[in-house]
């Protein structure tokens, strides 16, 4: 039976080794094509005061547009990240829930659309709607629908999800690609799904003078991805400046998490993980319960948190099993029987992570933690402690016997 375990462990190590190169090599980020056209160049002039930034900062954009026209500034990075959304809202026309899953891997990891200052109230009004704010309504109210372009170019896949598809762990049937305007409409929803808060993406800070000159600050937070950032000033669909760019460099200890689309100070997750796993050992529960919500609160996507924390415990679980198996302290029959049921569950769960929004993740996780907290409390009640004391004594006794038996066998073998 020992061998069986070793095979599993070996397979998992082999798996980890084989996947590593494919990740480091994967996902070359294609720079977006410059969207300059000769007609636009003459009408809107643009310049930026810096060519490089270190770990975020501020770049001032200035220029000149035709007099009396609003100027919008679009900023996006060449880094791409995933954005996904399950459309389960009741369709007004048919009265049914569509259950269509929209997903793109080409959402800019940083995107900003800056509006003229006069739209500050419009933005504020949309922000007041709380979670119900909508990108399309905001763009409509500010006349900016035509200038929303960079995210609209992301190729969005859509899948018809069904309950059965979720159970067998599939995204569902891939539907035919959308036309340009539908793709743009869905891109607006994905911008909200990815960046969540209105002020993260949309700001009303373009100062426009009567003679048509304009000026605006672009602020890159320290968690912004490294690489090239493109900037275009636009009046409408056809009247725009050429594309200018600046570069953001990140330096140690900042690292860019490719899949999360975010730069983090590497000491933050390191110290957090070390502290939480230490505490996890003390309270007798894995660290994931505390670690995951904290990482999500730091702003990392819940899909990446769940998908990356899980493999980190594989190793410690593996050594634990190995140690128990050495003293024959595992019932293989029981462990494998329940393990197969868990194997099936583990097949389904990760699909669901993708389907739920961050808010739903937080809500459900909140309830899981309340249940866990109740279980913990139950384990400190006098009745439980008394029973546990006896059980622990028996456990120690059995462990001692098992260890002795293992030792004897070893000596006998020599």
């Amino acid at each position, binding site marked *: 039976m020992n061998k069986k375990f070793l095979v599993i462990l070996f397979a998992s190590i082999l798996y980890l080794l084989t996947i590593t190169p494919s990740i480091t090599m994967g996902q070359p980020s294609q720079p977006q094509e410059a969207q300059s056209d000769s007609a636009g160049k003459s009408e809107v002039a643009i310049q930026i005061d810096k060519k490089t930034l270190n770990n975020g900062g501020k770049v001032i954009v200035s220029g000149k547009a035709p007099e009396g026209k609003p100027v919008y500034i679009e900023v996006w990075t060449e880094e791409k990240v995933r954005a996904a959304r399950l459309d389960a809202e009741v369709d007004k026309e048919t009265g049914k829930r569509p259950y269509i899953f929209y997903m793109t891997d080409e959402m800019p990891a940083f995107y900003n659309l800056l509006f003229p200052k006069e739209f500050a109230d419009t933005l504020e009004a949309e922000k007041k709607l709380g979670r119900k704010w909508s990108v399309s309504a905001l763009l409509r109210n500010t006349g900016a629908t035509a200038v929303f372009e960079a995210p609209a170019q992301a190729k969005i896949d859509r899948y018809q999800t069904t309950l059965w598809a979720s159970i067998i762990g599939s995204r569902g049937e891939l539907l035919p690609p959308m036309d340009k305007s539908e793709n743009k409409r869905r891109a607006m929803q994905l911008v909200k799904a990815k960046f969540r808060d209105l002020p993260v993406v949309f700001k009303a800070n373009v100062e426009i003078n009567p003679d048509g000159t304009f000026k605006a600050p672009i602020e890159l937070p320290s968690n912004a991805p490294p690489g090239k950032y493109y900037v275009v000033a636009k009046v409408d669909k056809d009247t725009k400046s050429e594309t200018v760019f600046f570069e953001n460099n990140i330096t140690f200890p900042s690292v860019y998490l490719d899949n999360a689309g975010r730069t983090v100070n590497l000491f933050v997750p390191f110290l957090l993980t070390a502290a939480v796993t230490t505490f996890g050992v003390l309270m007798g529960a894995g660290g994931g319960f505390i670690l995951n919500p904290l990482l999500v609160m730091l702003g990392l996507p819940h899909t990446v948190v*769940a998908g990356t924390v899980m493999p980190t415990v594989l190793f410690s679980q593996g050594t634990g099993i190995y140690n128990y198996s050495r003293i024959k302290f595992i019932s293989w029959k029981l462990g494998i029987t329940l393990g197969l049921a868990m194997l099936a569950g583990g097949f389904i769960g990760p699909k669901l992570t993708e389907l739920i929004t961050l808010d739903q993740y937080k809500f459900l996780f909140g309830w899981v933690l309340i249940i866990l907290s109740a279980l913990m409390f139950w384990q400190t009640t006098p009745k439980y402690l008394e029973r546990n004391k006896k059980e622990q004594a028996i456990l120690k006794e059995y462990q001692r016997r098992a260890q002795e038996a293992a030792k004897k066998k070893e000596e006998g073998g020599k």
Partner: protein
Amino acid sequence: MKVEFWGQEFKVNLFIGIPGAFLIAIASSMFGFGGGPFMVPLMAVGLRLPMYVIVGSSLLAIFFNTLMGSFRHYGFGNFDLIFFLIMFPAAILGGYIGPKIAKRLNPVIVKRVACVGLLILAFQLLGVF
């Protein structure tokens, strides 16, 4: 199902065990945690097994879930290599420090602190405050 463990025989009610393990696995792989704190009570209370049978066997059962969950998350593109490389050594460090401190602390107090901490975290997630 009958399970033999160190000369003793236990009856395991699979009608509770299998659906329970299945549901715990769905939840834990969905949220990305191990599932141990739920599996242990399931096996102790639901299946009426003594602790010494549970400790090793529950770990083995959970390992299946973690393995499958990790594969699946990877398949869906939820795995971030650099993030993993940061957390992995930290988790091992924590696993090394933890047991050293554990001997000096009263487990009941630790659990009560954890209880309060988890509730605070839960209320934060639920947006109560």
